[in-house]
């Protein structure tokens, strides 16, 4: 494949870079290569980290050297099938919007000249691709927020945003997986835990999945929260038509 760069990232990792922009097409290639590496075990490769437009491949130079690994990766990228690699999973995340669950919803509505309900409706109206995870355990970098919802970050970041907060920061939206300082505007809270170190699968989703937000009432929030605490809640997973 042309235009792919195999960049040296120290003596034990290589970054395979597919372009220099954020797009679903480029990210699809990153995830496709990641899939190939996960299913075809390449000797010496220890870990992969997919990001927007590149895949960081960690390896053990005692097992495979840089030049040999680049050769191997080049052969694998020839076989990239982005269509089959695309995840078909949509993870439904229940969100209680506004009030004490989303303290900045009013501000977002005011800034965007929409009603609170319109903000919620637009936020839930389509599915978001998870381009990558990073920054915090289970923190998702999502694509495709309705640009009408763009709202600048707070001038003074909050010292502590609680886990489960659903927020808007500039052109992005996301979920805080654990308590953290942050400047994004809080519009809702999900009772599910995107990150739970004690769960068999600590992180709820992976790069390539989609997220669909589903508005819920306060009563439903507490019901789900009680189930989550007993580890008895399962997010709905919907198969996506591609």
């Amino acid at each position, binding site marked *: 494949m042309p235009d792919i760069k195999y960049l040296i*990232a120290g003596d034990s990792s290589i970054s395979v870079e597919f372009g220099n922009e954020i797009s679903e097409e480029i990210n699809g290639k990153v995830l496709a290569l990641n899939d190939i590496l996960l299913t075809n075990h390449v000797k010496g490769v220890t870990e992969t980290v997919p*990001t927007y437009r590149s895949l960081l491949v960690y390896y053990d130079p005692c097992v495979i050297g840089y030049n040999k690994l680049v050769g191997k990766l080049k052969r694998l990228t020839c076989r990239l099938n982005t269509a089959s690699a695309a995840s078909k999973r949509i993870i439904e995340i229940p969100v209680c919007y506004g009030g004490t669950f989303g303290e900045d919803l009013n501000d977002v509505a005011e800034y965007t000249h929409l009603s609170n309900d319109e903000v919620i409706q637009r936020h839930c109206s389509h599915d978001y691709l998870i381009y990558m995870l990073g920054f915090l355990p289970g923190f998702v*970098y999502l694509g495709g927020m309705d640009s009408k919802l763009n709202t600048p970050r707070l001038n003074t970041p909050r010292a502590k945003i609680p886990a489960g907060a659903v927020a808007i920061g500039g052109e992005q939206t996301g979920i805080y997986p654990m308590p953290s300082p942050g400047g994004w505007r809080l519009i809702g809270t999900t009772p599910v835990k995107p990150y739970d170190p004690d769960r068999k699968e*600590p992180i709820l989703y992976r790069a390539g999945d989609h997220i669909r937000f589903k508005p819920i009432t306060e009563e439903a929030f507490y019901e789900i929260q009680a189930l989550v605490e007993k580890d008895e809640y399962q997010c709905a997973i919907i198969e996506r038509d591609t």
Partner: protein
Amino acid sequence: MGIKILNPGLLTSIQDLGRVGYQKFGISPSGALDQTALKTANLLVNNSMGEAALEMTLMGAVIEFTASNVIAVTGGNFSPTLNDSPIPLYTAIAVKAGDTLALGVAKTGCRSYIAFSGGLDVPVVMGSKSTNLKCKLGGYQGRQLRMYDEIPFAAPVETLPGLSQRIVPYYKREEKVNTLSVVLGLQTEYFTAKGMETFFGEEYTVTNRSDRMGCNLDGPVIEYQSKADIISDGIPFGGIQIPNGGKPIIMLSDRQTTGGYAKIATVISADIPLFVQRKMGDKIRFKEVSIEQAQEIYTEEASKLEELQKKLLHLK
């Protein structure tokens, strides 16, 4: 029964070689900063190289043993004593229940390691016993050690074969060396020729803004072409970010898995142990090596440790 912390020192945590395979979920690898010191300590007490040990920073811990075992102290020289008598570094030492091991202030280096034969009995979380301080994960209750914490041994021993020969001739890890070898990348093209000249020509100082995530250096500003911001990508161990201020940050074990600043180069694996033993005020320089040279050094270092392992395993 194992160890009881009488004084935790400045920052003491349980670390092994880190959590592999979870960076794709945003979870830092963690693990010992000076992996050579960790591996050597483990080999001295007959452990696999990646067993969990205690990592101490600048000021060591005081520990009471509640069971007998064989231990080894490596890394920087924190003037260790056993029941008030000095003990040598890089040497396996038998300890008895009731003994007290005390480490003081770092005389040389910045990080010291204590390995215990058979390892420490703490849960393996996501494949590792390492403490991830930010995520409160792994190690002992996901945190740095405090006074009166008690950590059991997993499989202690009274002695080991050839105990008196379990010494690594004090590993002259070139303590005076202050030049770190780096390979260029990932975003070297973001910097001007003048910027590259500054990076390789000038001296940089370790600042107090240093922790297990990364180490901020002070020194002349490195000039970039137009901006330091990139589309976030993965950050390797030893990756050198240059944020908008133009001063380098060397990313370490608890680094964020991804980041949006251009990376000028990456410190080679063999030199990360040298770097993490530098403390505030120490000066360093950078020198370029090719990827081939870097990997040659990498495999040499690995085979040195393998030879040591073989030698120790054959002791009778």
